[in-house]
């Protein structure tokens, strides 16, 4: 590389060049666009996470953050001591058969009872029942099952009646 070109390249890499040499208006406009659009999109992403709600949570201070998954996991945790290793547990819920809602509860229950497995049926000796309070009146437990644990007023563990 000729000496002058090398020197210019060095000045370009370091940005140590005059503004006239540096760029024309189109590139300046491009830089302004990239900066503006990047901040615009970043602030939209920030807005997605609802800053006022986060601010409220932060004001509570010092707590480990909590969401519905963590709360549900805690609610279901009382069934764990009743389960045997390698056990598959059944599942029933009164959540209306809206696919997304019911799926969410089912998968949250599975997540909560790991390392045990959940099966969306009543063909098991033990069954986890989720009967949310918003469904009124609460349905009866399925025939042939007895409640052996009540974790909360919504989550129950049922055992198949031997008879």
């Amino acid at each position, binding site marked *: 590389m000729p000496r002058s070109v090398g020197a210019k390249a060095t000045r370009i890499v370091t940005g140590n060049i005059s503004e006239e040499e540096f760029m024309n208006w189109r590139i300046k406009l491009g830089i302004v*666009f990239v900066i503006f659009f990047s901040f615009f999109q970043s602030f939209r992403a920030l807005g997605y996470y609802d800053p006022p709600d986060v601010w409220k949570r932060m004001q509570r201070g010092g707590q480990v953050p909590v969401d519905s998954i963590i709360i549900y996991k805690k609610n279901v945790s009382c069934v764990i001591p009743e389960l045997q290793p390698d056990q598959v547990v059944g599942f029933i819920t009164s959540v209306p058969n809206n696919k997304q809602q019911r799926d969410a509860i089912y998968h949250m229950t599975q997540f909560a009872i790991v390392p045990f497995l959940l099966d969306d049926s009543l063909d098991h000796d033990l069954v986890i029942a989720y009967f949310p309070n918003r469904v009124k009146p609460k349905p009866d437990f399925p025939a042939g099952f007895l409640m052996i644990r009540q974790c909360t007023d919504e989550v129950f563990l049922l055992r198949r009646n031997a008879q």
Partner: protein
Amino acid sequence: MTTALLATAVFISSVIGYLIVSLITYHVWGQREFFLMRITLGIGIGYGVTSILSFIWQAAMGAVGAPYLVFELFLTAGLYWALRKIMKQGGDLQFPVSPGTRKKSPWVLLLQASLWGTILLGVIIFVFGTLIAPSGMWDAWMVQNRTARFFYLGGEYWTSAFSPLLVSADYPPLVGMSIARLWRYAGHETIFGPVFFAFTITAALAGFLISAIIYLRGHAFAYIAGLILFTSSAFLVFAPAQLADIPVAFYFLATIVLLRIYENNATPQWALLILAGTTAALALWTKNEGWLFLIAVFISHFIVVLILKKKPVQMRPLMYFILGLLPVILTVLFFKFVFAPAHDFVRHQPDGFSLADQLLNPSRYLLIAQSYLIQLYDLTPDRSTPLIALFLVVLFFGINPKRLNSTSFISGFLVLLIMLGGEFVIYLITPNDLQWQVSSSIHRLFLQIWPIFVFETMMSINMPQLDRND
């Protein structure tokens, strides 16, 4: 205490990755230069290697406990010893050092300051996202974190993670294994495990893209690349979501960048091909989309060599790529054949499903094509990968026809094209409700290849005033 232990776990895997990268690339990059590129690459490779090692350990021993953690320390020491030995034999190789900055143009300073500003915003968004949903988004807790819990809590029944009773149980376990490993260091299950993983891999991706552009085109381009990366609000929203999309995006990007650096070198640097093979294989250890990516890399290579260059395929570069690929892909195959159940597509095919009907239905083509089109300009915060902005960037900065016609650019572009085409076919044949499938996943598929789009754009634009290579 938990934070310190998690940081230790991340530090150890990053050092392992960094030492592996340094060992393989010692004769390419030396041991002093390009630190940011080696450490960011090392973070990703470190997670990949430690997840594979802990998976093999768990498969062989039944449980991963303190002995494995000691093994990692010995591994780190061994790699350090090997690097020292190579350094002694090779001497302190001198590589071209980037000139130090003196007085920068105000425009470059503005770019630099803006990049730092968006990085700061990105960190704030990550914290906010974590406070709102510490368990991550739906797929994160339902698949990745669930798998991690099986690995960590399962004891001898850890293989229940792959039970056919579970959805997506065939997903490759890099993320799950990495989170379980973090919990082992912490000594208990903590929500900060997945949070640490998500934060470090996102930071590594952004850092690697920026450092790669510094390496290939200089600082000003790198600042612009970083800013463009953050124009995807979906990237920022999904960072704290703990999904596998950002990790897989990291490995996609790393492969493309390493292949580009290899092709740009006048003399063949086989080490880069070995690393590229490893990162490509780690992509399929992270998500099933990795298979499509690997196929796309091979097809684009053959098209470029056989059709564009009109040369016979050389076996030596392929062999080096496969050398890097092999250890990981063998583990993936071991996982797929021994542990993983069939894919949900196969297990949950509805009655009366007909592949021919799906392929011959024009409304399916239309729906998918429309969704692809919308994705180009969609600015919804959790869906936006604004490819339209890349067109505007090209309009503003101009395009270098020489770079556009280079085989390395065409090769990268072909990978993207094949990936998009492949996903199109997958949508066509999915047995799930197409509307639901497309709307719930298309933005994530674009997010996975978004960093490659940014990289290719930065490699093709024309700003000779700022270009270190022109």
